[in-house]
């Protein structure tokens, strides 16, 4: 009897698994007018997505991810053939070096001329000769601070994060690359250094900082600052702009030692099955109306020059959203770590968290 039961169970299992695999195959057989898009979470205005589908007749399968690492894991898992993906500079570089990118046909993009040439130029650091990417948004990493608790002078240097006066009032960014960027900039080192001695020095400083840190946060940073639980926080410019919208006492600055400039771009991966639709998508993202709507939803700096015409003077003068030329001159882009440095910094990060 037992044997029968086991046979029954294994038969059921087999049937179940084969069912799953068949449905998976079914999904694969897409028609020509679909497009699989992978983008950061909360990084597009829903209306833009709807309009694209209405105007082009292309059905979009829209997928989201939270962090760059998530994106890489999702892409590498290989179960979905993505047609067009948006991600950050150093991950684009990693994928480019792995041979995962397909060149973009810039001639088919009617709206590409809207994109700011300086940002295209800056993109050359991760996309030499600019063959594979179209910029979507960019921004900086800096300090969001409460003007009632901290004065402008104090936050003009990253040193303030080591100030005992702000013990338990400092929110540090919970991301390995950005956290190490801070002491590396203070020490005057390259933020992309692979020199273990320099990284160790940065690590020692971060360990020293830990006793003053209230928490290591990412997505909760702006809530924490809005409710005035902390005096200052290291965060992305868009996160800061969002916080400042809810609380007038908040302000944002990139300290004098400089910070990180990041550029998120669209690219076409090797798994692309609908190249023409992907070009239409990228072109649509560069269109004036879509770019404006997206900008007003995301609040990061847009490389699209036509957006400025639709915004009021106050928004355009907002240095949190649009970093000045002077700020940008102090900021560097991340480049991809080689495997050895990636392992080394990951271990240091874990050590810091356990410290």
């Amino acid at each position: 009897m037992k044997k029968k039961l086991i046979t029954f169970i294994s038969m059921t299992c087999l049937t179940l698994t084969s069912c799953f695999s068949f449905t998976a195959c079914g999904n694969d057989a897409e028609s020509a007018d679909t497009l699989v898009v992978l983008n950061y979470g909360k990084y597009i205005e829903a209306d833009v997505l709807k309009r694209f589908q209405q105007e082009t007749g292309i059905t979009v399968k829209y997928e989201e991810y939270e962090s760059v690492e998530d994106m890489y894991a999702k892409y590498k898992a290989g179960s979905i053939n993505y047609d067009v993906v948006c991600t950050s500079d150093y991950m684009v570089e990693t994928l480019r070096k792995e041979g995962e990118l397909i060149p973009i046909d810039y001639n088919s993009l009617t709206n590409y001329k809207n994109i700011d040439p300086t940002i295209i130029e800056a993109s050359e650091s991760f996309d030499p000769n600019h063959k594979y990417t179209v910029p979507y948004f960019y921004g900086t990493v800096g300090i969001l601070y409460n003007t009632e608790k901290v004065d402008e002078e104090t936050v003009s240097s990253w040193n303030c994060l080591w100030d005992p006066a702000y013990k338990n009032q400092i929110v540090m960014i919970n991301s390995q690359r950005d956290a190490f960027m801070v002491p590396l900039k203070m020490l005057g080192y390259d933020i992309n250094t692979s020199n273990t001695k320099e990284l160790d020095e940065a690590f020692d400083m971060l360990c020293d900082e830990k006793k003053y840190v209230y928490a290591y946060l990412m997505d909760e940073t702006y809530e924490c600052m809005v409710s005035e639980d902390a005096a200052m926080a290291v965060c992305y410019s868009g996160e800061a702009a969002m916080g400042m919208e809810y609380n007038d006492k908040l302000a944002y600055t990139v300290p004098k030692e400089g910070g990180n400039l990041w550029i998120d771009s669209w690219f076409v991966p090797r798994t692309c099955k609908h190249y023409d639709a992907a070009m239409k998508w990228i072109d649509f993202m560069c269109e004036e109306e879509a770019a404006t709507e997206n900008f007003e939803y995301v609040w990061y700096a847009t490389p699209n020059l036509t957006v400025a015409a639709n915004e009021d003077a106050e928004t355009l003068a907002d240095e949190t959203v649009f970093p000045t030329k002077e700020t940008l001159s102090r900021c560097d882009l991340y480049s991809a770590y080689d495997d050895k440095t990636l392992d080394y910094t990951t271990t240091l990060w874990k050590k810091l968290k356990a410290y």
Partner: protein
Amino acid sequence: MINRFRTSFLAAPYAIWVLICTILPLFYILGYAINTSDGSFTLSNLLAIADPIHLKSLGLSIQVAFITTVICLIMAYPVALILHNLKITNKGFIVFLFILPMWMNFMLRILAWQNILSNNGILNGILSALGLPTIHILYTKVAVILGMVYDFLPYMILPIYNSLSKINDEVIEAASDLGSSWLNTFIKITIPLSKDGILSGIIMVFVPALSSFVVSNLLGGGKVLLIGNVIEQEFTLARNWNLGSGLSIILMLFVLASMSIMNKVDDTENGGMLL
């Protein structure tokens, strides 16, 4: 014969569930644990527990789980005792009150603690209104332990309450008839007879506390690194499923060890035990 077939047939859905959702994943995890990412055999993922970072996190986890369990026990036993001795007919209602918080999503309840304990939160608001100095609790080990005690307390109260309910009142009466003091009766009669409940309460609190990572994520602010957090980060951030699995297996061994110690203590009886 037919009857037996029917019984096993009824058990089939559960058997399939266990097979797909418990046994298969366990084998997968073991498979990941004893292989490198390119598929060759290795023990390094299991031995990685000797790494100072991992040992420290494991030590911290054991410490936090132990303190949580002790606090839960100290708080739960009197509550269960009072509950048992209450001279009301509808005790089910009181027990229901203890289970009630579990009806709300666990994450929401922990997020509520964030609001209570934060620098500018409810607790500090009350303290400063009373003219007292404010305190810094959120994103420390204390906050993590507090969250765990809050979350796991019902799992300690219920089994102790159940085992107390099973004690025959006449036994207690007989003890006092024979001149035993209240304290003596409590130590020599009540506690030994409720041992089953205490032991299963300890297991039901200690084991989840040992492997938890959500509470420390939300109330630890990235500063309290438990072994559960290390494993989670290996799976997500570092994308090292092999190391994550190796550490999970080691953690499982610790869980099994603590359960077997508890079972040893309990080898005379087999009442309200979990296993």
